[in-house]
């Protein structure tokens, strides 16, 4: 019972065609895992070049034009092709059907189509890099992007435009699955919090992504056909672009961090072996973030020329969106209380997440304080803040999640000691990279600077040194996870003693996930009960 099953989703079929034409959500998760991993290291390569250039105050490694392409390719790749798809499309794809007790997502073929659309968008973006790159920054501000830039803007925005449809379809698939395909007895308030987080994320995918698609389409049309939507000389308005762009791109921050919060809730409960503290508060705070997150875009424009009145309202709303995040942090911390805590690698990532996300969230208060934002806006303070959320939060949770579910995905365990070391290296390297940037920002170093005044060098050198440590921390898991595919110990169905439904089926799971349809008779995270008291596998599967 505890050994690897004879036939499972990985060995049921062989050959490249069986992967490229699969409709199995678990295999599609692997397609995404491989692609976002490639994009992560592609984006990381540009981050390395940025940190190398910034070791010295003079812009002496590459020309300014080249440097501007580096940070643009870094941002575009990491935001649109790694952070946004990472947790939803990899872990979400693998886990949503298993966590709700279904045999697949609602629309398996649409799911595969989403991956192809994602890859198509990625190819456009890679093509623009190969053709010479783009230099607008990932924010594509007009009129620079629409008129002045001499780089491959149109190709890049087409790539991002196309990829957006992948997000919309994935979000749609998740929403329908969560509504319609929950196992008998799996009521909304028995759902794992990861599902709540993915649900909230999917709503943003569906409502927000069309806006960025239209916005970038307008930039492309203005560039190619000279239409002047954002050109003041022809009655257009460059600031209109910022409203449209941030109407999506601020909620997109929550696309990147809500799934990470979902992973966090799973990890903290599994490694503290107790029920999450304040289940409904954690669940509803995800929805609150998704809703209020749509109303705070103007805080990206406090000094962009919007009215004072608008600035004050967006400041107020930005403070409000911080509160659900604070509630989550307090509840996760309280979940540790009277837990039975083990320090396995996923838990190290999870604890690191709480710390770094807390710093990211607290520095968000600095930026919402509109009088202070005037000074730190568009400086390295902002860079540090959002890397604490995006990398300290989302990437830490993603890595924690990959380690946690690796035994389920592969049937093998990764080597624990080296994984713990890697988690510590990531934590230390991350802080050394990004903490000095808070100081740099307050001192007045603007972002996207190719050369900088010499008095900023010491802090930049610290940051670059940290980045090299961080790089080691990211390459290590790549090596030992691949190693474990062949040499890892056979995991068994539930190596962590976790209570999630996905752990009640063999590892790797069969193609149809469960041999019999589970019936859920208790709430999630019932660590005070045996798994048999939460799930009944009585009736034969109708599938």
């Amino acid at each position, binding site marked *: 019972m505890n050994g690897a099953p004879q036939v499972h989703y990985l060995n049921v079929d062989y050959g490249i065609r069986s992967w490229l034409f699969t409709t199995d959500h678990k295999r599609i998760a692997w397609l995404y895992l491989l692609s976002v991993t490639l994009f992560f290291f592609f984006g990381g390569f540009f981050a390395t070049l940025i940190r190398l250039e910034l070791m010295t105050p003079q812009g002496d490694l590459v020309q*300014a034009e080249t440097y*501007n392409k580096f940070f643009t390719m870094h941002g575009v790749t990491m935001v649109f092709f790694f952070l946004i798809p990472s947790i939803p499309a990899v872990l979400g794809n693998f886990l949503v059907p298993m966590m709700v007790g279904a045999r697949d997502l609602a629309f398996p073929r649409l799911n595969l189509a989403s991956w192809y659309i994602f890859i198509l968008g990625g190819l456009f973006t890679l093509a623009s890099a190969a053709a010479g790159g783009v230099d607008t920054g990932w924010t594509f*501000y007009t*009129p620079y992007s629409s008129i002045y*830039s001499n780089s491959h803007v149109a190709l890049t925005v087409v790539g991002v435009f196309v990829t957006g449809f992948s997000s919309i379809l994935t979000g749609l698939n998740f929403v329908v699955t969560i509504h319609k395909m929950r196992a008998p007895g799996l009521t909304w308030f028995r759902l794992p919090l990861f599902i709540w987080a993915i649900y909230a994320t999917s709503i943003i995918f569906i409502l927000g992504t069309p806006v960025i698609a239209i916005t970038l389409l307008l930039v492309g049309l203005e560039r190619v056909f000279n239409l002047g939507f954002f050109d*003041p000389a022809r*009655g257009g308005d*460059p*600031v209109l672009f910022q409203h449209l762009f941030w109407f999506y791109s601020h909620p997109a921050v929550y696309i990147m961090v809500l799934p990470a919060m979902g992973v966090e809730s799973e990890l903290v409960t599994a490694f*503290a*072996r107790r*029920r999450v*503290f304040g*289940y*409904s*508060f954690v669940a509803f705070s995800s929805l609150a973030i998704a809703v209020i997150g749509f109303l705070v875009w103007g805080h990206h424009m*406090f*000094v*962009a*020329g919007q009215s004072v009145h608008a600035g*004050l309202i967006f400041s107020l709303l930005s*403070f409000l969106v*911080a509160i659900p995040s*604070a*509630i989550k942090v307090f*509840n996760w*911390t309280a979940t*540790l*209380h*009277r837990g*039975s*805590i083990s*320090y396995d690698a996923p838990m190290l990532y999870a*604890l690191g997440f*709480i*710390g770094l996300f807390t*710093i990211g969230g*607290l520095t968000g*208060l*600095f930026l*919402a*304080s*509109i*009088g*202070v934002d*005037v*000074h730190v806006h568009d400086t390295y303070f902002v860079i540090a803040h959002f890397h604490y959320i995006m990398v300290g939060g989302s990437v830490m949770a993603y890595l924690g999640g990959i380690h946690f579910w690796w035994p389920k995905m592969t049937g093998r365990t990764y080597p624990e000691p080296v994984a713990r070391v890697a988690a510590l290296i990531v934590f230390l390297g991350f802080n050394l990279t990004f903490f000095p940037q808070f100081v740099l920002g*307050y*001192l*007045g170093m603007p*972002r*996207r*600077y*190719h050369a*900088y*005044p010499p008095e900023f060098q*010491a802090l930049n*050198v610290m940051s670059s040194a940290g980045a090299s440590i961080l790089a080691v921390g990211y390459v290590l898991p790549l090596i030992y996870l691949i190693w474990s595919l062949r040499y890892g110990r056979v995991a068994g169905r539930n190596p962590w003693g976790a209570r999630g439904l996905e752990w009640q089926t063999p590892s790797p799971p069969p193609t149809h996930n469960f041999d019999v349809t589970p019936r859920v008779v208790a709430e999630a*995270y019932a660590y*005070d009960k045996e798994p048999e008291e939460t799930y009944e596998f009585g009736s034969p599967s109708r599938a």
Partner: protein
Amino acid sequence: MWQNLPLFPQQASTMAPRVDALFFFLIALSLFFGLLIAFLIVYFAVKYRRRPGYERGVSIDASIALEIFWTAVPFGITMVLFFWGASIFLDQTQPPVGAIDIAVVGRQWMWKLQHPEGQREIDELHVPVGRPVKLTMTSEDVIHSFFVPEFRMKMDVVPGRYTTAWFEATKEGEYPIRCSQYCGAQHSGMLGRVIAMTPADYQQWLGGGATGVSAAQAGQNLFQRLGCATCHKSEGGSQGPSLAGLFGKTVKLQDGKSAVADEGYIRESILDPQAKIVAGFQPVMPTFKGLVSEEGILQLIAYIKSLSQQERTAAK
């Protein structure tokens, strides 16, 4: 490289200590909550570590009182932060009356500035200590941002519209101007400096190398050269409204709405005259788009402003 590693920029404007006070409060707040969370995590992780005979945690139901407590506390704190930040911002965006009016035009990759007395500067701005300075800014190409870290002052400089910012230097010295909105290849090279001087030195600087033509006079010359005076007669007429005493007044428009005659209104009326027609006049004015530069428009505005000042002086 490791010598004089500063952690905070100098305070050189009236606004700097106010921004810093809130900043330090935020740091204290962050330290408190950051250390509290870190302490709890480490304490729980050690105290409740898994050990033989203690393989499962004790699931405790949430306490509603506790949840309300830790929702209400952040709410209260953020409201304090909101009002504190907003009160600073309201002053940051409200230039005091009597500020020196400096016209700023940004372009890839330089700052062009003009004093009311007529002095023009490129990438340098001489100002007196102890007097507020108001910047009326626009861009000839992409969006730039006028950032003086030592003054805790920043404002985007946007093509097609005016943005304003102000500061009052409190210490003599030279302070860097850095463009903080990415504006193309030489973004990090778009540098300037504010030179804050004693009022006496400033007067001397104004006197030396003076053009003799103030911004308003330059505007008046432009006004004549472009033929504006043909219709906009000072005594008024049927062709175009008189501009005397116009600046800052509320203007009644043809469509029944009204508009305040500020910098943006005048700029629009020059470049897109049909946008807002003054009540009682025909839409006959041609556009001056392409005929007058951004700096020229700012001079015309200085001239129109000076007409109001003349009227006010006359009234006294």
